[in-house]
């Protein structure tokens, strides 16, 4: 991972890299050591966070080198104190989205393979004997679909619980007011 960060530092202008590159690598090393103690998931999210920060920082510095200004809206660090919401995107949602994306990509690839294996001219289909129909594959597919839908549903509910949406809906302003009086 550190080699990857080092490679990303090459996106920065040379002068900036000379001035801060060594220090940044020291900090990245310390962050990585700390996250490793917290587990693989923490390390993964920290890696994504740091990668985003490095890429965005490099683009900002390149922009500054070109224009001599940071005041371009999204790159600006000079904006007035920005109120950040207490809302934090639950980490589980990111994992869930990755799983869904992987499933979609897998399905597309599978569909392409099936499409390639079928000849374009459909062969004539003769009479199908009842013994030729097997229930097992369709049953397996149904069960698998149910499990996948269940997992996705659970993931969504888990994500909502992490965001506290259901706690908000359970709040009763009238009861709270009475409690406060």
């Amino acid at each position: 991972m550190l080699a990857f960060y080092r490679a990303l530092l090459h996106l920065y202008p040379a002068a900036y890299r000379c001035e801060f590159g060594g220090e940044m690598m020291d900090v990245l090393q310390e962050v990585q050591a700390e996250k490793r103690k917290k587990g693989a998931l923490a390390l993964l999210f920290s890696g994504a966070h740091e990668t985003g920060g490095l890429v965005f920082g490099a683009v900002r510095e390149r922009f500054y080198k070109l224009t001599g200004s940071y005041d371009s809206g999204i790159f600006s660090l000079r904006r007035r104190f920005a109120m950040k919401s207490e809302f934090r995107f639950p980490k589980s949602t990111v994992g869930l989205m990755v799983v869904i994306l992987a499933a979609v990509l897998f399905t597309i690839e599978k569909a392409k393979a099936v499409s390639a294996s079928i000849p374009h001219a459909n062969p004539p289909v003769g009479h199908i004997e009842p013994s030729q129909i097997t229930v097992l594959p369709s049953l397996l597919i149904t069960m698998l679909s149910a499990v996948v839908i269940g997992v996705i549903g659970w993931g969504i509910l888990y994500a909502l619980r992490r965001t506290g949406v259901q706690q908000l809906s359970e709040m009763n302003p009238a009861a709270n007011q009475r409690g406060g009086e």
Partner: protein
Amino acid sequence: MEVSEPVLLILLSLAEHPRHGYAILQDAERMSDGRVRLSTGTLYGALARLLDEKWIERFKEQDSSRGKQAYRLTAAGRRNLQTEVARMRRLTRVAGLRVARKET
């Protein structure tokens, strides 16, 4: 120079005593109760701006075996931070009064 939340947290972290990069990251996260997690890229982007504006200065830590670079507030930086904190104090006081008036 106007102050964003990450920049304010960096300045507040250095207001106590000089710190090096990783210590600033940890302190910013602690001060914001884990809400603001600065990435290394964001931290050094902000530090570069603050050095440019001469709000902070860099020096080599003497007691560190690796001679780490540390950062501290300049007199101008501390003055600007005090101005910013005073502005925020006024704003929160007005906000408190307005909210209280609305509730009564």
